[in-house]
């Protein structure tokens, strides 16, 4: 029923290979329906997901980002997700200080057995981002190159 003018959020999901990717796979094989706004990028482990990738996603036009992996104690590499969790805490702190809209980054644990949790996660995130609207604030700045030579006043 969506009209052509309704905002469809673009969402990039960075997921670990062992839990969330398998979980998302289960969502599909279980024939659970969920929003199609998400593009999945598979990583070996949440510990491998560089924080700059999240910023790159916004610069390239994403309105929201999902980062998801194994539940604590379930990491295929024992502690990758614990390291990732620490990094997320730090990353949220610095992004919040810089005034980046951290509501647009959704972190989650989704196991290989949680197909329905993945569907809920995506649906909820899409709804949240839809309510927030496009991340134009970030995208506008990302397009900017020093054309004028001197700094323009903001």
């Amino acid at each position: 029923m969506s009209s052509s003018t309704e905002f469809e959020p673009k969402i990039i999901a960075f997921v670990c290979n062992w839990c969330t990717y398998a979980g998302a796979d289960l969502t599909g094989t279980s024939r659970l329906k969920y929003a199609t706004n998400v593009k999945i990028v598979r990583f070996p482990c949440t510990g491998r997901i560089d924080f700059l990738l999240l910023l790159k996603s916004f610069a390239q036009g994403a309105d929201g980002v999902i980062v998801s992996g194994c539940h604590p104690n379930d990491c295929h590499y024992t502690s990758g997700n614990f390291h990732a969790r620490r990094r997320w805490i730090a990353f949220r702190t610095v992004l919040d200080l810089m005034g980046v809209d951290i509501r647009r980054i959704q972190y989650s644990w989704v196991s290989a057995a949680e197909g329905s949790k993945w569907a809920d996660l995506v649906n909820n995130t899409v709804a949240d981002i839809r309510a927030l609207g496009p991340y134009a604030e970030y995208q506008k700045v990302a397009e900017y190159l020093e054309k004028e030579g001197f700094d323009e006043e903001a």
Partner: protein
Amino acid sequence: MKKLRDRVAALLDEGAVSLVIGYEEGTKRPRPLFCRNSESSGKLIFDSRCFHNLAVYVTKKELVGKERFAVTAPISTLRSILQLYVENQLSEEKLLVLTVDLNGELREFVTFEEISAYVAQFEMKRGEREQEILSKIEGMTREERWKFWMGEMSHCFKCYACRSACPLCYCTKCVVEVNRPQWINPWPSPISNMEWHVNRAMHMVGRCTACGACGDACPVGIPIDLITRKMMEDLAPEFGYIPGQPAKQGNALSSWKLDDREQFIR
């Protein structure tokens, strides 16, 4: 001052050290001095205006050479030296640390344990400038913070003085120089400038000792030191370390706790 000069001259004359990194009077304010013989020790000064972080030089191999050397270190430099030691960048055999304490007494630290005990007496506090800007930022809405920092970031022209002045930025190849993939664009633009400074802050988590060298070095006056300082303040209680003192249990991002906060994770 005389005690310091005499001691440095003696160290150099005895051959106990081959180099002493200290301060001399500069054209605007004190600047780093490299004493390689006892004559130049007469130029040494050490007072409250000496705040350039000399720890930036102690990891430069072409500068310090293979022999034992000494550094005259105010508190900020001491903190950085400790952090560098924790990161296995320094050894006690190679470095002798001198300072003048609050009573004007010359002190010599042979072990890092001694430095650690000395540094622990000093609490990290915001200075007037830090307090003024940070409380302004803390009072802003998210949108205002974004506007504030984007305004600041638009001034950055990527001279990397912040990186060069930081004692803890000792990587031989920085992430900005990696071009496969090109993580951070080499030209200045507000977004890539922000990516660089966020990246710098992330690499400093649990390591930054808030010496302020990066902010002081910035030729265009961006208060970048406050990004890492605020990170330090906010994350120290969370990750269980004391600001300005190296974490005993390893660096914040190379360790973790089972009960790290996770209410933001769905």
